[in-house]
């Protein structure tokens, strides 16, 4: 992975009338990385993706794709980008074969053979109009179209939405294969945290129109822990930790902290009367819940 940014989001703001969807969002997607953009429904992930693809003009700030403004240089940039949208958007009347034939002339590095192989692997009927395919088949067609262009950047906007476990697994396998073979950079927005965790290099989390996390997955996982303490009669404090969530239990206390280090744990142990301190590593989903889920509600 080199340090060069394929995609650079700078102070991005998106508004729909009085509603602010994104505000002051900045991050970079380094070349060769798999960048997972996480957030709850309505957190602005798709708006950010649309801005990144030059489909939507932001209210403020901008996105640079391969060093150029994504809005101004969209056409040039799209020749190097493969897109799998949240809702498969291909013309419903065209068959998978017709879609391949339609897209092929636009890309200089189009790989028709691999695309057709992929469609065969996914058992996508070549003569059935796109609109009549199943959700999984539509996703497969969109992925085949995106990968056939031999893109430098792959943008996947919630690609597993609505897919069953088998289709989800197949999609990730395909993605892993592609990434391993060509070192393609990927920007993935998803709610499937278990699926993305094994392949993501970097993670960014959107909450309340703002970016609340943006770092490598390793770093993120290293600083998040769940800490449990047994009952203690003495006055208690979580210092030097800064708990994101904290709760009193009948067996003691529990907190999720976002600034975990071994040094802080040592200091905490030294200050805590109870000997019964348990430290548990968190999965990406648990970290995401602690970061994005504290506001409560369903949306």
């Amino acid at each position, binding site marked *: 992975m080199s340090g060069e940014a394929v995609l650079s989001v700078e102070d991005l703001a998106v508004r729909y009338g009085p509603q602010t969807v994104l505000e002051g969002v900045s991050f970079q997607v380094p070349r060769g990385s798999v960048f997972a953009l996480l957030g709850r429904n309505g957190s602005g992930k798709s708006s950010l993706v649309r801005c990144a693809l030059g*489909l*939507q*003009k932001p209210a403020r700030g901008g996105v640079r794709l391969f060093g150029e403004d994504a809005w101004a240089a969209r056409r*040039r940039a*799209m020749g190097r980008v493969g897109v799998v949208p949240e809702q498969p*958007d291909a*013309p419903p009347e065209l068959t998978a074969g017709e879609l391949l034939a339609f*897209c092929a002339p636009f890309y200089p590095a189009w790989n028709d053979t691999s695309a057709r192989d992929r469609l065969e692997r996914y058992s996508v009927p070549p003569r059935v109009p796109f609109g009549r395919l199943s959700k999984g088949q539509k996703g497969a067609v969109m992925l085949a179209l995106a990968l056939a262009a031999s893109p430098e950047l792959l943008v996947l906007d919630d690609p597993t939405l609505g897919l069953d476990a088998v289709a989800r697994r197949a999609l990730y396998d395909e993605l892993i294969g592609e990434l391993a073979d060509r070192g393609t950079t990927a920007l993935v927005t998803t709610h499937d945290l278990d699926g993305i965790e094994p392949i993501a290099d970097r993670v960014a989390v959107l909450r309340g129109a703002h970016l609340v996390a943006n770092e490598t997955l390793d770093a993120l996982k290293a600083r998040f822990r769940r800490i449990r303490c047994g009952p203690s009669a003495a006055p208690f404090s979580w210092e030097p930790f800064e708990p994101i969530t904290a709760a009193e239990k009948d067996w003691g206390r529990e907190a999720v902290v976002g600034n975990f280090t071994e040094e802080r744990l040592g200091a905490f142990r030294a200050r805590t009367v109870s000997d019964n301190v348990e430290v548990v590593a968190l999965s990406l989903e648990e970290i995401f819940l602690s970061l994005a889920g504290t506001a409560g509600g369903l949306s």
Partner: protein
Amino acid sequence: MSAVLGIARQEVSTRRFLLAAAAALSLLAWALRAVLPPGWSRELGQSLALVLFLAFPIAAAIAVGSSLVGRDLAEGRLSFYFSRPLSAGALWAGKFLGGTILVAGAFLCCYLPLALSGVGIGREAVAIWLLALVGLMAFAHTISSMYRSGSRLFALDLSLGAVLVTVIVVQVRHLGIAGAGHVLLTTAALPFDLAVAAAALLAAAAAQLAYGRADARRGHVALSATVWTLALVAVAALALWSRWVLGVTPAEVGGVRHPLLVAPSGSALLFKGAPEHGRAGFSPVFLMDGESGSYVRLAPERVTFPAFTADGSAAVWVAPAVSWWWYVTPDPGLLFRGAEARRAALAVARLGHGTPVVEERALEPPDAELALALDGDGQRVLVSGRSGVSLVDIASGRLVAEAPLSNIWAADFLPGGAAVRFYQTPRDGSEHAFVVLDWTPKDGKRVERARVPVDPRVFLLARRGDLAVVSTGMRGKAIIDTTSGAVRRLDSATDDVPGAALVLSTGLVALSLGEEVRIVTRDGDAVARLPVEPRTSVYALREPAPGELAVGLWTLSLDRRRTVFVDAATGTVRRVEQGLLPAGVRYGAMDTQPQPGSFASRLFTGSRGELVTLEPDGRKRAIVGVAAR
């Protein structure tokens, strides 16, 4: 370019059922001709083909236009195209090229059976249809995109659309009332209008895709901004253009067209004239004071032949009820049958005081068609209609009296105004006759003053006082003395060309007979003869000064047309004016003879249609046309 063609191909491919449906329906219409019994199969086939020709392409244009981009926009599929290395311009061009191919293809499929069954509409009409369909497709796209964006801006669009329609109606009405409504629909203007509208809507679609891309609302803003900006420009241009079209002046008139009518006294003249260098082909009727040059423009369709008072101080004509939309409806008779029942008005022009003033009055007789005569003080007018003649009080438009008289050549109020003299060819028997008839409106009494057997090619050539001159066709010319009822026939062997005649102020009669102009007494005795060379005909006779006869001689060669001025008492030639002919000659010479020495008697037409007067001192004064500038 390949991207444009690729998208166009995709659009055509996904909607190919439209072409198939058009072809199938065309075949159905065509097959009906063979299947149905002879006699009505052709009519039914043609009717079906006509309905198909009109309805299917229109439906196809609306369907294609509303789904071309609008459906992708509504279903969030535009992002598919914008996620490819495709420019907005290529997407726009490809989409609308595909749409145009579909619409044009559907049209041609539908038109073929019509053309093959011999009801073709011509290349120009085909081109206009195609332009209209492309415009309709672009219009459907615009409405569809505005509606499908889900933006509140659509309400503003609807309001602005209503305002636009109102403004255009006002503009067209303005043109229509002035008699220039047709300029919007001329073969030159209509394709231009359609092309401008289609181009504006297509430009708006381009702005929508370039500025909005996959963002429906942002695209809507661009679409609306472009549409309404261009609409504002178009309305302003239409207003300026209308002003320019209607601003035609007599000074621009290249040549005077028929009709040209001149008051027997005074200096008023009424003529139709087209500007030499265009103004969209608008040819108004000018009512002009020849001495001062002041004028008013009149809508040609609302001017019929006027009747002037003897002193030329007023003119009256029947102004047919022509609605302003008459010009812009394909068949007003079919669409607006009610309009036919609308009554004509009476137009009254006050003359002789600079710019003529025209007012319209109600007219009671429902079938009035033509003003025949005005009484001396301009209070009453005699109008003819389909069922007879009516005497109408001008101030109130009320019917004073009526008589079931038809086929009237001319009518005059007799001195005192109590009776009217008619010159008519009644169709009440097998024998064709020319009759002079006096009618007293007060008691309805009719007295026949003279009756002359004629053949169908009869013409009233001149009338003045108690004398009238008639060309009776192959039976020669005749002088009718309405006091005694005596008829003097002259040279029954003359040719069948109507020729010309004039009753001179001295009581003599000048008339063309064969290859001469003869001046005779009321008894037909020759006073003087003026030979006319072969291949020259007598165009008109005038009395530009008392006792002087002007003989207009017409030849095929423009250079040899001339007017010869002679002493009416002796036939001695005084002078010749090359290239000029007496003006204001109406077919059949039904107008009142100009007074000797009047403006009308001195008015002449040049070879290019220009009007000049010959002043008493011999100078020529340009009135209208090239020489007047």
